[in-house]
């Protein structure tokens, strides 16, 4: 166990290292000169553009630029956004909570929709309920998030006027308005995860319902719902919980399009805009942070799984 834990932690650093190299390499390959973008309306001044390239060390060999960045990171400095002159760490601190709020709300939607659907589908297997539950689950998986977002803005904001189409407000500032502006993107995000949760709940439930102890409970004469809720559900939730932690990681790193459509100022929007603006320090820094979170969440998930099910061996 300790060996397993130790080896997993030891794997984190090389993975992050590889992540940073992949992203750095990709940036260099992308066409587009950050100096031109930074110059903005002054891009027509070639001396100026050359000067900017110099200041940003863009003319140095790529390995040198990478090592310079790495050196800074090891000293806790993620660099400065070229576009805003703001420290990348500060940007991450501002925007990660936004994406986190969105992700947590999305996950709640996913649980509230997916788990009951999964239970229903397993208990009422091969009936109309099964079809309905499957249908709702599949809906979330098949619909493109950006389309669902656009349609929701059209129907809910424009036609019905129930919710504002954009304009995020932090929870601490005005929780009512904050929820009003995040409920739609959270629902859109949560849909896809709901389907996955539904499926796993369903299979776990089916396995649990087939176990001996459940048959015993039924034989004792307990009502079906008591059997389901008290006995099978508890065991069925284990893989759901561990899977859920993983999905949360995927949510954190992947709310990109939803944030774009709803103009939510989160990490996803930040990094995509940074790609389009060729703001390399932001891309590098944000991807590193999200990769770290993803890897840590993976580790926690595996640990949970390991702890709950000691029969599982690593490998």
């Amino acid at each position, binding site marked *: 166990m300790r060996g397993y834990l130790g080896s997993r932690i030891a794997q984190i650093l090389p993975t992050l290292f590889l992540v940073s190299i992949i992203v750095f390499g990709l940036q260099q390959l992308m*066409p587009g000169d950050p100096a*031109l973008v930074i110059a903005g309306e*002054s891009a027509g*001044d070639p001396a100026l553009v050359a000067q900017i390239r110099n*200041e940003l060390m863009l003319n140095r060999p790529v390995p040198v630029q990478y090592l310079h960045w790495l050196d800074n990171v090891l000293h806790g400095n993620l660099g400065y956004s070229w576009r805003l002159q703001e420290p990348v760490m500060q940007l991450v601190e*501002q925007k990660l909570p936004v994406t986190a709020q969105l992700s947590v709300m999305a996950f709640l939607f996913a649980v509230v929709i997916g788990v009951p659907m999964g239970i229903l589908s397993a208990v009422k297997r091969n009936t109309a309920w099964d079809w309905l539950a499957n249908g709702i689950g599949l809906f979330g998986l098949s619909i493109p998030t950006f389309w669902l977002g656009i349609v929701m*803005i059209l129907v809910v904001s424009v036609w019905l006027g129930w919710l504002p*189409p*954009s*304009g995020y407000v932090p929870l601490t500032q005005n929780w009512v308005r904050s929820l009003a502006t995040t409920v739609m993107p959270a629902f859109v995000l949560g849909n896809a995860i709901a389907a996955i949760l539904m499926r796993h709940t369903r299979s776990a439930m089916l396995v649990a319902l087939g176990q001996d102890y459940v048959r015993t409970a039924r034989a004792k004469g307990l009502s079906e719902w008591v059997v389901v809720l008290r006995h099978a559900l508890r065991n069925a939730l284990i893989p759901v919980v561990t899977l859920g932690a993983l999905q949360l990681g995927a949510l954190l790193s992947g709310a990109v399009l939803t944030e774009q459509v709803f103009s939510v100022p989160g990490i996803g929007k930040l990094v995509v805009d940074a790609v389009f603006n060729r703001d390399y320090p932001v891309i590098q820094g944000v991807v590193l942070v999200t990769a770290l979170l993803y890897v840590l969440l993976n580790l926690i998930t595996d640990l949970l799984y390991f702890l709950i099910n000691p029969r599982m061996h690593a490998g």
Partner: protein
Amino acid sequence: MRRIFFAASAAAFLLLGAAPRPAAAQTLRIGLREDPDVLDPTLGGSYVGRIVFAGMCDKLFDYDTKLDIVPQLATGYEYKDPTHLILHLRPGVTFQDGEKFDAAAVKYTLMRDLTMKGTLRKGQIDAISAIDVIDPLTVELVLKSPDSPLLAQLAGRPGIMVAPEVAEKEGAKFGLHPVCAGPFSFVKRVPEQEIVLQRFPGYWNAKAIHFDQVVYVPIVNSAVRLANLQSGALDLVEYIVPTDVPAVEKDPKLKLAMSWSPGYDGITFNVGKGPMAKSPIGESADLRKAFDLAIDRKALIQVVYNGLYPAIAQANPPGSPFYIPSVQPPARNIPEAQKLVAASGFKAPVTVTMIVPNSPDILQAAQVVQAMVKPAGFDLKIQAMEFASSLAAAHAGDFQSYLIGWSGRADADGNMYSFLHTGGGFNWGGYSDPVVNKLLDEARLYTSVPERDAVYAKLWARVHEQMPLIYLWGLKNIVGMKKELMGFRQVPDGIIRIQGMSMAN
């Protein structure tokens, strides 16, 4: 949810209205089309950044609605001789941190614009060779050579005055918390979300300010921006896309302000930069003229921009004092275009590639052009790419034609020199003609509009013979706002000036 919110605030408002109260604690919420870059006048390059500066930082001079230069922090100027420009400064002005605004502050700011690491302003005021403080309210600028556009620059970003002590202390971090001498002080900024400013009580023109707070909100998606204006979440939107204009006009709660803008869009041909210039269209002026004749600008503008923009054949659109009425775009003439294609020696259909930044309206326009030039014998291939890539491609000469616009400058030189002069920074296509160079340089020596226009008329005649650039349409400033918002002065540069604006109750 929103209805409850609005009902509650309406009730609160009524209650507030019942009691006698001081000047309304009012916030002005302005929607921007994109998020500004760094809020440092020396380091910033974005157009919308200028809008935020207008709320926060006063300049030496400003523009009025006729684009005449008027005093702001400077009360007047005079030329001792063509290379010595004297500026008279306004007395009793303080920066938002209490520092005095004087000649030393002017010198500091201009030196910062010229010498600071990362400055984007140097090229704009490069004509200055020395700055002398004559007395606390008088500055003398010594120029390397006569430069009539310099004054216009002092009404632009280089003329934005920064608080010297703060700027000195913060250096490149100044943009994270700028301190200037404008009507509102910087409070906070959350990138891509909002910029909040608070009224500065010590502002020299305080009686013109009727708001306590200004919040700038960047919203890139035009439909969402409009929805915010319609729902009342925004008070003013600095740019309404032309296709949304009917919706604003129909809305009884909103009104529109439209004016000409010095900006334009057009097609730049690569006629002399690198190997891609050796394309049929790059080498044959006849082909380019045929291309020009095949485009029906009015129809294009009708389809893409609701007919709101003017069709042009020159860099200075109608409304500009430098607009030459006799220079008009041709009517669409396919037979003539076909003749020119035949005369060029190239066999139809001639393949032309065009790089197009992938903003929705530009993409549409490109597809319209594609359909229009087909009967003339052109097979236009569109290469849509995101803006940064297109800029890099243009910079490297990696294109045959480039559909791109320019936000425009009030002074004609700003719209023409770098685009048409040999070696000009925006001369993506490598156009080089000694006659055009001579005319551009000549125009810089004159200070009166009629004299310059006479030169420009000759220039356009020459440029149209070679057609390195096809000017398609001029832009317009389209500002949408609540009906109760009064006092908005629309200046063609598109900047939102809060002085004089108020909310009628």
